[in-house]
């Protein structure tokens, strides 16, 4: 494979591609970077730079509406992520490592359907259904939001768990059974510990997805049930101050932290079997 370095020819190189790739990365990060920078602006405008300051972070911290919405967002995301992950784990166990049986394809389609149906349509459907139920039961708490979030988070939690299960060698469970483990003990001592990284990854994905949701929440929420994203959506209609940038920056850091942990969990080089 003698390559002539003078001609700079590489089998994999296509001219211009690297430039466009760099442009893509630039486009992806420029707006976010701008947003973060202006969160530290001392002035009241999000356009003119008037020096470095943390005043907008402080202002967001003292804004009771922001704090309430944040707490609500975290509550909903935690509960919904746990419910979704629990359901998704059981569903993954039920749909992997088996010979096809009747109804399996139906299960796949149903489990993945929240990924395919346009969010706005689901939002509308839930608005119709929940407004009826609200009238019938008189209950208008966070339950509706939690139910909606849990449902659309299931496929996101399901994906990494299923992927992990499918890479898990069935012979390990056979070995456990061979060594006198009952089906329950096999699950407890072999399947679950090996599946754990997948479950954790699913939990985090579900959490981030729930935290980010705007459309469905906007349609399902009752009065005074703003989450952070729907609060921000409302604010965007008005004159925006760098307080929005500050809130966004904190939100961004939270998502980034979770995704980073997710990244390291899913590339954990615990090679079970090549």
């Amino acid at each position, binding site marked *: 494979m003698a390559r002539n370095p003078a001609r700079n020819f590489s089998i994999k190189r296509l001219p211009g591609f690297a430039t466009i790739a760099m442009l893509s990365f630039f486009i992806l990060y420029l707006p976010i970077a701008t947003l973060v920078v202006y969160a530290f602006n001392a002035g009241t405008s999000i356009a003119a730079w008037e020096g470095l300051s943390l005043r907008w972070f402080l202002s967001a911290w003292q804004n009771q509406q922001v704090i309430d919405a944040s707490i609500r967002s975290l509550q909903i995301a935690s509960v919904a992520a746990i419910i979704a992950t629990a359901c998704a784990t059981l569903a993954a166990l039920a749909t992997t490592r088996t010979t096809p049986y009747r109804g399996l394809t139906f299960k796949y389609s149903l489990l993945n359907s929240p990924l395919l149906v346009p969010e706005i349509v689901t939002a509308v459907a839930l608005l119709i259904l929940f407004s009826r139920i609200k009238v019938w039961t008189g209950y208008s708490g966070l339950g509706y939001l939690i139910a909606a979030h849990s449902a659309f988070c299931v496929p996101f939690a399901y994906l990494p768990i299923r992927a992990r299960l499918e890479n898990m060698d069935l012979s390990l469970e056979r070995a456990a*059974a*061979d060594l006198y483990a009952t089906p329950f003990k096999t699950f407890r001592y072999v399947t679950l510990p090996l599946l754990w990284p997948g479950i954790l990854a699913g939990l985090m994905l579900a959490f981030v997805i729930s935290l980010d949701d705007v459309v469905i929440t906007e349609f399902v929420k009752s009065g005074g049930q703003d989450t952070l994203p729907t609060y921000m959506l409302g604010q965007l209609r008005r004159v925006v101050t760098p307080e929005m940038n500050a809130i966004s920056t904190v939100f961004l850091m939270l998502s980034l932290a979770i995704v980073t942990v997710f990244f390291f969990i899913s590339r954990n080089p615990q090679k079970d*079997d090549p």
Partner: protein
Amino acid sequence: MHGIKKWFGNFQAVDDVSLEIRPNEFFTLLGPSGCGKTTLLRMIAGFELPSEGSIRLDGAEIASLLPNQRPVNTVFQNYALFPHLSVAENIGFGLKMLGQPKAKIAAAVAEMLKLVHLEGRGNDPVTQLSGGQQQRVALARALAPRPKVLLLDEPLSALDLKLRKSMQIELKRLQSETGITFVFVTHDQEEALTMSDRIAVMSHGTVRQVGEPWEIYDRPAERFVADFIGDTNFLDVDVVAIEGERARVRLASGAEIPATFPADIRPEGRVSIVIRPEHARAVAPSPAAPLAGTVHDVVYLGTDTHLHVRLADDKTFLVRQQNARSGPCGFAVGDSVGIELSDDVAQILRD
């Protein structure tokens, strides 16, 4: 094990196999891939259920017990070590599942580590071990609960040649030290001949022959067994007479030689015999030699040389000529040779 049959859909993987494996025996199931040997092993372990037939262990029926209810342990082909557990936890897994007290497990694990020469490695994660070491852990794990039968599913196939040789000896040692019955599955005839007390040769879901290694090699009952194990020459001959346990057969050249035959048949008329290449010797052409032909290929192999001799009836006869230090065996392509046979080398095949 009696009348075992197993279908996968329309495919019959195991067809009416009956075997008796004796206590403290190193028993090998030998056959090409797809012959049903692994399926048979998995039925003993309980991972597959037989479609028909019974499996008895010490007189007790076990065919429909779950794997965790059978006093039988398996060494898996890919070892199937638990990657999230340490070496010691892997070895102690079976005893823990059986509810043994911690102290007893620790003692058993220490003993097992010593048995497989992995002292001091107990706390290592299994993922950091070499292939040979993983193999030893898998063995120790399966032996730790003192099963009545240890099943080994081609456990050496992933190791390189040198390691495989030493593990063969190691396995044999472990078997005799523990006194546990080993049932070993392999497609490697040499592995089978080296280690086994007895071998069952399988093909297409049926057992073709059961016997000690020397019987399988020197007294093959049929063409498949003779062909599968070692290099083989087949000749068509006529039975002249039966004298006790020997028959006299006449070769195409007219020479008569003695031949053994399987106990369950009375050979007569035209039959096939098998002669191993190492029992023949190429000599200068002579009327005394029972076979004669022309050399059409010479293959030098170090310890010996293979001569491919074309006989008068156009069949090829393989002769293995021991090499001396003085140089090649002295025959060249195109030479006419006679072939001498050692005494009592022919075996009549059941057909």
